[in-house]
């Protein structure tokens, strides 16, 4: 009897739960997107328009003067942009080269203590940066690198445990036959890494590249510690300084925030699946 009722209900119940699902998706979806719409909308308003109640989502009239004010204005947003791009490019080079070598060593080369070092590598992933923040700051201070971009990307040349781990896992999945064949032909580890592993590892390299991009684009603590003069600032500290200064000009701030977000949006649209892969594999936050 119970089974019969269940069978009878089924064709009705599934559509209802699906309707609930889509209503919930639409509602939550709007809530998740609204902040972005609000950001862009505010950025296109005159200062006075932003302080109106109720607010208008499509500003009348539309103005792009907030964006224009960011270029060559009193706050050198173009400089911030350039500095950030330099840091990100250098960090990509540093991260991708160093992590490839180290990951290959952990995945394929045989050396004494490798397993122990691998455990050490995993342990360092749990260590909060704040614990070592002060001595690391002292190191860069001693080197005379304060107020330069160097402390922001030089460390990337020494690998990152998360990415090394991610790439090692990927490398382990590459068939050994390919490598053995190359060794028989006299190829050394450098050539094997460069000609076999790197071309086969495009997905994981892209994942690491995306994480590096987002991580350095959004990085705030590093620039906050090391940079002091306005001309050397990256977008994150620049924006932080800009927002603290003399009341808040929200339309201008939102224009800056929009410009700071656009590159991530573009990367996200182009490479979304590599982000997804990285997060699912490491459980790391973007």
């Amino acid at each position, binding site marked *: 009897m119970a089974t019969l009722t269940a069978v009878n209900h089924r064709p009705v119940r599934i559509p209802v739960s699906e309707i609930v699902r889509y209503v919930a998706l639409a509602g939550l979806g709007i809530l*998740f997107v609204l902040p972005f719409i609000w950001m862009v909308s505010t950025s296109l308003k005159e200062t006075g328009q932003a302080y109106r109640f109720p607010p208008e989502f499509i500003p009348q009239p539309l103005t792009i003067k907030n964006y224009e004010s960011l270029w060559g204005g009193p706050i050198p947003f173009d400089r911030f942009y350039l500095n950030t791009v330099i840091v990100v490019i250098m960090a990509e080079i540093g991260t991708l080269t160093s992590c490839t070598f180290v990951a290959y060593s952990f995945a394929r080369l045989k050396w004494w203590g490798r397993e122990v070092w691998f455990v050490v590598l995993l342990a360092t992933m749990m*260590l*909060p940066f*704040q614990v070592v923040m002060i*001595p690391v700051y002292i190191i860069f201070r001693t080197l005379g690198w304060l107020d330069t971009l160097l402390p922001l990307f030089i460390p990337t040349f020494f690998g990152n445990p998360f990415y090394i781990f991610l790439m090692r896992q990927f490398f382990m999945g590459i068939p050994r036959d390919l490598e053995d064949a190359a060794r028989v032909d006299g190829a050394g580890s450098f050539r094997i890494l460069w000609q076999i592993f790197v071309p086969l590892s495009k997905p994981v390299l892209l994942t690491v590249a995306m994480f590096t991009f987002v991580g350095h684009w959004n990085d705030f603590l590093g620039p906050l510690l090391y940079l002091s003069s306005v001309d050397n600032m990256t977008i994150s500290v620049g924006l932080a300084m800009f927002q603290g200064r003399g009341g808040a000009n929200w339309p201008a701030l939102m224009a800056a925030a929009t410009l700071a977000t656009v590159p991530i949006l573009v990367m996200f649209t182009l490479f979304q699946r590599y982000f997804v892969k990285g997060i699912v594999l490491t459980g790391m936050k973007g």
Partner: protein
Amino acid sequence: MSGSLQSYETTIQAQPSAQIPRWQMVIRSNFQGYLFASPWLFGFFVFTLGPFIASLVISLHQWDILTPMQYVGLRNFERMLQDNLFWHSLRVTVVYTIFAVPLQLAMAMLLAVLVNGNGAVKLFFRAVFFLPSVTAGVAVAVLWRWLFNPEFGLINFLLDAIGIQGPPWLSSPAWALPAVIVMSLWGVGSTMLIFLASLQAIPDYLYEAAEIDGANMLHKFRFVTLPMMSSTIFFTLVMGIIGSFQIFTQIYILTNGGPENATLFYVLYLYQQAFRSFKMGFASALAWVLFLIVMVVTLIQFRLAGRWVYYELGE
């Protein structure tokens, strides 16, 4: 380890050029292994282990960077125990963690269940929910400051539209911390993805079996989905707690610890002591306590894990 060396030797013997003595091969492979790993090994000593130990040493000193260090023994730690702001910042961080992390996990779970399945619509919403977690940073924190604006912000406008008088959020000691929690819920997209992967790994036959036993949707969620996802939930819980002990950027931008220290998170206090007051010794002591907290949380949770986490099928 001898096993892995063994397999190396067999690989070598397959080569025509294996005339080189074995000990030479071992040295060569060790040299190469260490050479390739050297960037990280160097970085580990210089940027992790060295600073880790140095941090402990500095915590035993009084130091403002400019004048020489003075050894003070455990006085920084003693001072910490009597420091109201230390306890306060710890309390703020713990209260935030207790409320924010479970809410984040619940939100991530809800989103994951909603977008689970195939179809362009679900794929689209996956991207929508995931995007905010990627954009995290100063820009987003500035955006939220504007959203929380009591008079002209979007949030109070929406609350007003449904007849609720919105609170003053960031300028109120009572509402600043809830505001930070609300903002954190917007960034659960990456946790959603982890849950989604774990949801999709649950075999259909478990649900079919539950249906035969007369389970309804809630039963299936409670008795199939949750147990099958327990290890993932547990993992995200650990990472969530550790992450919330390190919150900094959002707070620095949103409130800078205020109003009336209502959002003085632990790491913000550490930062202020180190780089505003230049009390490097005291700040290093704070850093070591942070390390111990993170370690203890991790260990306790892994101890507890065995009790309620259902790890794998067929075990």
